[in-house]
């Protein structure tokens, strides 16, 4: 019982330590960036490539990377997946989107760099790569059995008054530069402040007040949705880090073995991670001695799958395809974790 209370205290302590000025600032900018992407980026251009008539190769590429732009809400991934599969580009790009949508989002990617440049970069690269591989494989395995009712119109979206592309590009670049200048390694308060002033000027010059208001509103909604669970994740990470013995973690996932990577991906696949919560939890495991390759494996399999989510996917594409999908995710996450883990050991 006392251990439990101590663990709770550890959780609280972890939470308190986690909230630094740097993190708050970095996250705030990342949230504003996400809000800006949601509001100002043209979805029309991207969605076209997921339709039935688009070039096959392009639709895979777009599906793998558009998660950042399209599905900022995790609940809309599944309906979009279903539509792309039945009425659009087909099961291949749909599955690629299903995997990459939750995996490639600005917030998660930004925060992953906290775990290190190695894991940050490989996470992006491997997520995109795996999503395409799995999509192509699913396409090859199941294409003959797919029945579609292709509907081109669904993928011709109308954009309502987006701001000019170069204006949004400048806003995005300024915000990204702000995030980079705030990074621990290159922390430069003068640069960040200058960029902030530049951002304000850009907002005044480029945006109508209505646009700005909507941007702030979207951002606040994102924050309200994500931060509470994220804080729970930080608390949970502290709690578990206290309870789980280091020797156990090192023994199971410490070295870069197939077994260790496999355990990590299976755990990631089944465990539910709310947006961003995978970061503090993996951070906790790393501090207990988890291998960096296994950490990557968990980060790859984690966001896109969870046990409850598997059931819903099953309802949409049937048991056979869902099981195939899960197996492919686990296999490739393990593989990537293993390969990258070996590379990490050489660095």
């Amino acid at each position, binding site marked *: 019982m006392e251990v439990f209370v101590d663990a709770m205290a550890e959780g609280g302590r972890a939470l308190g330590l986690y909230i630094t000025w740097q993190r708050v600032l970095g996250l705030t900018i990342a949230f504003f960036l996400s809000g800006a992407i949601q509001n100002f980026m043209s979805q029309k251009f991207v*969605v076209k490539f997921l339709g039935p008539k688009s070039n096959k190769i392009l639709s895979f590429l777009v599906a793998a990377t558009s998660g950042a732009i*399209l599905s900022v*809400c*995790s*609940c*809309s991934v*599944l*309906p*979009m997946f*279903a*539509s792309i599969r*039945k*009425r659009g580009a087909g099961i291949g790009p749909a599955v690629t989107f299903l995997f990459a949508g939750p995996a490639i989002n600005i917030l998660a990617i930004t925060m992953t760099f906290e775990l290190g440049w190695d894991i940050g970069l490989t996470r992006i690269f491997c997520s995109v790569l795996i999503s395409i591989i799995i999509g192509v494989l699913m396409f090859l395995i199941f294409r003959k059995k797919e029945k579609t009712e292709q*509907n081109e119109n*669904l*993928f011709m*979206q109308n954009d309502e008054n987006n701001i000019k592309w170069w204006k949004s590009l400048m806003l995005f670049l300024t915000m990204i530069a702000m995030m980079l200048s705030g990074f621990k390694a290159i922390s430069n308060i003068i640069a960040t402040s200058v960029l902030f002033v530049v951002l304000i000027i850009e907002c005044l010059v480029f945006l109508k007040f209505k646009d700005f208001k909507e941007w702030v509103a979207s951002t606040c*909604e994102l924050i*309200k*949705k994500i931060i509470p669970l994220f804080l729970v994740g930080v608390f949970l990470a502290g709690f578990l880090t206290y309870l789980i013995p280091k020797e156990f973690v090192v023994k199971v996932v410490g070295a870069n073995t197939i077994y260790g990577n496999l355990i990590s991906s299976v755990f990631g696949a089944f465990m539910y991670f709310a947006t961003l919560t995978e970061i503090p939890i993996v951070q906790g495991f790393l501090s207990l001695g988890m291998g960096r390759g296994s950490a990557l494996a968990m980060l790859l399999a984690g966001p896109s799958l969870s046990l409850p989510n598997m059931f*819903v996917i099953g*309802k*949409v594409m049937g048991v056979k395809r869902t099981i195939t999908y899960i197996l492919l995710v686990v296999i490739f996450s393990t593989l990537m974790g293993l390969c990258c883990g070996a590379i990490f050991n050489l660095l």
Partner: protein
Amino acid sequence: MKIKILGSGCPKCQKLEANTKQALKNLGIVADVDHVKDIVKIMDYNILKTPGLVVDGKVIASGKVLDIENIEKLIKSNI
């Protein structure tokens, strides 16, 4: 008038439902508002992105949460 909100239950679709109910109140219309959460049923309505708003079987909006004013306009033009 039968209204359906299409969405798996996340904050966005709940907001759409709340806005829709308020819009109906403002317009003084009494209508059934049903929230369809089952993804297989949502698929029947042929939308790309949730949340979706359906009035008397016809999809009048999808993909974003509309504000009350916009919903009122759409409902009025679909009576």
